[in-house]
């Protein structure tokens, strides 16, 4: 019965591939764990802070990837979700006395709120997801490039509102007094949760359908895929984690400001994704690590590095110039990013287990 043999071995190959895909988030989480342990054990306080910041960025960028990676639509709007998340967390956790002076226009429910940080970060994610559901319902009906531009308009819209709605957001002046609870371990927890969600979504039927529509819009809709619905699902999930990431950013620095969640953050998130490679989750994580290390080195050089008697310092702003130049070079010479769309997985024979055919 040669036919059934072929079908059986194909099914197992498919199973092997699914198991391999499932190892990706696990391996990435282990990579991050090793990174945290190394930094906490061998590094100083500055490097511990760098590690927390990097893990927050992993949360943001892996969340960002859930939409961009699977749909192939570049979004410029995800920094706005981080902005909303950060403010929701501030509204619910900052001491009421502080809020009364900084944000007199808050409704009583929020003005008196003094939540624990965990429900606050969940609320941050949910608020961002809700906003994504509402705005995505409009934006995602557009075709690829026009949708990207509309997300840009959305980002500018949120920034305009946040910078001018002074009684509730504090306007362009900063909101201070956020509890600085983000240690590398907190960052690791959320980063791993995001990786798990990203892995699950990518492996889900919706993720597969969305990637099919990314590869060929016409063929996928001919196969009965409702691109809009899957895009909206990915957009909403993705916004949840960007909202959480924003809340973490706020609680990492302790001070938030609408301009902290505008073009520079958008640029940084995009740069990380492009450098690592938009096509894979591993690319997103590798991109965050590579760009974060580069940014850290450049920030140190902007502060000044002494070589012998000569102190050598880059002018402020050169960090962005060099990262932007690196991003353009990656786009020209390695358009698919460092990982070129591949995932980090265990080799096939390790996950094949018993009963797998040897072809």
């Amino acid at each position, binding site marked *: 019965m040669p036919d059934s043999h072929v079908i059986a071995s194909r099914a197992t190959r498919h199973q092997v591939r699914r198991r391999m895909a499932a190892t990706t988030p696990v391996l990435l989480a282990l990579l991050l764990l090793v990174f945290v342990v190394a930094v906490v054990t061998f590094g100083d306080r500055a490097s511990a802070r760098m590690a927390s910041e990097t893990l927050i960025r992993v949360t943001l960028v892996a969340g960002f990837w859930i939409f961009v990676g699977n749909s192939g639509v570049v979004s410029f709007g995800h920094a706005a979700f981080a902005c909303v998340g950060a403010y929701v967390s501030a509204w619910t956790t900052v001491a009421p006395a502080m809020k009364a002076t900084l944000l007199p226009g808050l409704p009583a429910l929020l003005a008196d709120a003094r939540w624990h940080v965990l429900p606050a970060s969940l609320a941050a994610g949910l608020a961002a997801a809700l906003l994504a559901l509402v705005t995505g319902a409009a934006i995602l009906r557009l075709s690829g490039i026009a949708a990207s531009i*509309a997300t*840009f308009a959305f980002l*500018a819209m949120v920034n305009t509102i946040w910078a001018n709605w002074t009684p509730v957001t504090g306007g362009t002046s900063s909101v201070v007094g956020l509890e600085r609870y983000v240690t590398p371990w907190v960052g690791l927890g959320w980063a791993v949760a995001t990786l798990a969600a990203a892995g699950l979504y990518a492996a889900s039927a919706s993720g597969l359908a969305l990637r099919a529509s990314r590869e060929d819009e016409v063929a996928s809709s001919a196969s009965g895929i409702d691109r809009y619905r899957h895009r909206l699902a990915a957009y909403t999930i993705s916004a949840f984690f960007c909202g959480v990431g924003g809340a973490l950013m706020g609680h990492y620095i302790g001070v938030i400001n609408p301009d902290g969640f505008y073009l520079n953050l958008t640029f940084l998130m995009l740069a990380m994704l492009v450098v690592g490679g938009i096509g894979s989750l591993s690319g997103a994580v590798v991109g965050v690590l590579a760009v974060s290390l580069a940014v850290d080195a450049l920030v140190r050089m902007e502060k000044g590095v002494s070589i012998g008697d000569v102190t050598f310092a880059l002018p402020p702003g050169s960090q962005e110039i060099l990262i932007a130049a690196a991003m353009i070079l990656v786009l020209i010479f390695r358009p698919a990013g460092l990982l070129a769309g591949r995932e980090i997985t265990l080799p096939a024979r390790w996950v094949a287990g018993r009963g797998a055919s040897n072809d």
Partner: protein
Amino acid sequence: MSLQLVFDALSLGGIYAIAALGIALIFGVMNLVNFAHGQFIACSVFALIMPSADAVATMGLGALPAVLLIPAILAFGAGLAVAAEALVFRPLRHASPVALMVASFALGILLQNVLLVAYGGRPKAVSLWPELGSPVAVLSAQVPLLQLLVIAAVVLILAGLALMLKRTRVGLEMRAAAEDFDMARMLGVRANGVISGAFALSGALAAVVALVLVTQTGVADVRMGGQIMLVAFIATVVGGMGSLAGAVAAGLALGAASALLQAFLPVDARPFRDAFLYALVILVLLFRPQGLFASVGAKPRV
């Protein structure tokens, strides 16, 4: 009052139209969504003054008499855009539109930070042709001379551009390239020539916007290109990506909508004018996702 509003709407819309045209031209010939256009505008503004971190700017190019200054700054804008094309976009010619868009965003950030390093982050006072702010009586309205000049310049530029596109060989090649780039090349249109030409034109249009902005506001700010670029983008989307006439019409419409919102929104809501504008656009797109004046090439064919 109402006549005043008409002039406001026309001059603002005219500027938006010129900026949108700069973006639509490039999208037309190479499907590039050029997020660096706003920085072309900002760089042209800063080219007027000497690099320093002072609050009041010392004029560099801006000290020239207008007869020399205008061609010089137009040439600067064109040169910058052509250089950007040669260094960044030419190596990416065969990349996907998404990669091109991301590259242009990175280029915009790069240029913005170059300005930041050279000039510092604080906005600077620049007084270029302050006498143009003096009001002139037109019928019942007092209109700043600058507004009249802007409206006249926009009409001249649009007419000149239309003539160029319709009557000259370069214009014919550009329209052909916008219609179907590969076909145009097969029929003997030089790709590099047309694309460089489109970038030069787009850069010169950015310089026009820069001159008007700096005369109007009297400020040079590293961030000044961003807002107008966004409106220009929205105009190109609303006008139907790649349609030049659509971009101009949508630019004028957005200028009018902006002036109307500014005049008729309640005072408390005025700071949110731009937010209303962007929301309005997303609403329009919900009903006409291909834009109001979709070009034939906008919808992919199977």
